[in-house]
């Protein structure tokens, strides 16, 4: 599973990345959390508000800083 955080490096993006890592650790998954900071790259996902969360190339949220619990639920759904 590949998790990407879309955002220019603002505070919210960093918090979201931390929360995603916490969710990954909680579920005991073996996957990296990558940050995408290039605007052209971000635009390719078609989101208009950062931060965005991408799981296996699918945008699962944008414009919100999800809590670790919420991310864990999304990841569980995606793993199934």
């Amino acid at each position, binding site marked *: 599973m590949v998790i990407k955080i879309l955002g220019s490096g603002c505070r919210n993006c960093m918090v979201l990345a931390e929360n995603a890592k916490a969710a990954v650790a909680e579920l005991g998954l073996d996957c990296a959390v990558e940050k995408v900071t290039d605007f052209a790259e971000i635009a390719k996902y078609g989101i208009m508000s*950062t931060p965005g969360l991408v799981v296996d190339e699918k945008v*699962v949220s944008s414009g919100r800083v999800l809590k670790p619990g919420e991310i864990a639920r999304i990841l569980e759904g995606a793993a199934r």
Partner: protein
Amino acid sequence: MTVLGWLNDQLLKMEWLAHLVGQLVEHVFGLDLASRLGGSIQFFIYDVIKIFLLLSVLIFGISYIQSFFPPERTKKILGRFNGFSASVLAALLGTVTPFCSCSSIPLFIGFTNAGLPLSVTFSFLISSPLVDLASLILLASIFGWATAIAYVVVGVVLAVTAGTIIGKSHLESYVEPFVFSTPTCACGTGEGEDPSLTTRDRLVYSWEQAIEIIRRVWLHVVIGVGIGAAIHNWIPATFITALLGQDKWYSVLLATLVGVPMYADIFGTLPIAEALVAKGVGLGTALSFMMGVTALSLPSIIMLKRVVKNRLLVMFVGIVTAGIMIIGYAFNAFGHLLA
């Protein structure tokens, strides 16, 4: 009318709080309110509490409204209009769409890529940070409703005018090519379809927004009120009026040029404007400082530079700066009509 006036005084201006803080400073700290130190402390405590109280309530309420207007939806609505009416609508939607300067680039790309003209995109980008519902109510609390409404109206007019001029200049070739060529898909969650949120979702969103925005702006507010308190009581009025007085032709020019590169929130700049006006600075001068700070800033200009070429960037900054100055001089000339 008197009931409304009373509500306005107590809820917006919070006269009860001013009184309470006055009592605290006089009887607990043992300081005379007329003294410099007492006056500064009262201004600081009262303004900080007032702004945080208003902000918490306002942002919660306004985020609820904003949850109905995610940028994806705004983009869709705007796509249905064209020409001048699209610019006006963009400026108006800019006041209710949640906006954070770190999102301005994806937003710019999203709008442009969807085929929206530059005029519409820029009208939105100007009005979004400049005017929002929270600033309207805070302005009303400090300067009264007439001034607050006038501020919103000129802010929207500025956004529409600047956007229209940029659109008429046909500068599409000065947008970095990758903005047009990036294939954006509406893949993913079906965003833009406005995933049907429940009332509970919206309340959670509003709560998160309130906490996040206050976390982001609290330092700006404290610093702003601190500067306001200093202006209020420690910097001689003669010094301030010599620089920014009503009768000085260069006052608006100076206030705008100082404000433009600064990056701060409107909530942090309001107490500074309040103190300046109390010291005899023209309302227009104070407003152009505020508009300069909120509409343009060095960080946002540097960010925009990644998607537009210099000529368009210079034009954008130039038009907005000139517009703010015109608004400043107009308020100084006709502001007395609002009092």
